[in-house]
């Protein structure tokens, strides 16, 4: 199905946010940067999408291997972005996928906590074009994206 090795033109990003407007915005920003986007409205749905619900060590579906980056809001009901980050880092299938945390609040302890847990970057909401461009270049350019 795909003969190309190592080069992915349209990286796949999973965007998680409980706010509908923010989900729409992040999706559009990413799509305008030539990304394929899947959105989830909370951590649980994100884990379900990735097939990581029962057992973090294996994925029950194909989706996990196709996702090249996860961007998640920090403040979400149920499971925070930090908790989602932890679960992703605990999974052998997803632990190397870059996770970016977003928040509308600039709280240094929160930021450090996420970075220490393995988040690649922390971004302040609302996201702008320049933020997404930075993400695209840093985490999703062809040389850093693994082939599906």
């Amino acid at each position, binding site marked *: 199905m795909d003969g190309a090795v190592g080069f992915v033109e349209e990286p796949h990003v999973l965007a998680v946010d409980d*706010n509908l407007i*923010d989900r729409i*915005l992040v999706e*559009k*920003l990413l799509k305008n940067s030539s990304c394929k986007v899947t959105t989830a409205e909370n951590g649980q749905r994100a884990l379900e999408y990735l097939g990581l619900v029962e057992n973090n060590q294996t994925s029950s579906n194909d989706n996990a291997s196709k996702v090249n980056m996860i961007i998640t809001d920090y403040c979400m009901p149920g499971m925070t972005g930090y908790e989602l980050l932890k679960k992703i880092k605990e999974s052998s299938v997803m632990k190397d996928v870059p996770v970016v945390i977003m928040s509308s609040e600039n709280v240094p302890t929160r930021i450090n906590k996420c970075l220490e847990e393995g988040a690649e970057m922390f971004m302040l*909401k609302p996201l*702008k074009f320049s933020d997404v461009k930075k993400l695209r270049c840093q985490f999703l350019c062809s040389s850093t994206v693994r082939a599906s």
Partner: protein
Amino acid sequence: MEVDQLQRSFLEYTTSLFREGFLDGQFGQLQMLQDESNPDFVVEVVSLFFEDSQRILNDLSITLNQQNVDYKKIDANVPQLKGSSSSIGAQRVRNACIAFRNFCEEQNADACRRCLQQVKQEYLLVKEKLEALIRLEQQIVAAGGAIPMLNEFS
């Protein structure tokens, strides 16, 4: 001629909204996201913002009208409104939400009610202005013109 006038009116009106603090740079980002594949993007997002905000404001009214105010509910709703208004660039609504949240933390019911009125007022004002702006955009497009791009006002 008509298209030029409409475009000038649009730019003047938008500039005044930025100057008066109704909108901030984030609205400009929203405008930039609109393209041929999504020509109604701004209208769609703004409409969602109206629906969402109305629902939250109604819920907050009900919550604050109870004998025993459930501050947890307020604490859940106000950040949502703050987030949405911030994301579309509705600066004054966002600022009113910040004040609201501070009083909520103090569990001061009267102050919260006053804050709610303030937020409602700002919301209705920005709603009116955004609707006028969208009407201008639609007139420009109907007259065959392109919507002029805003300068970065952040």
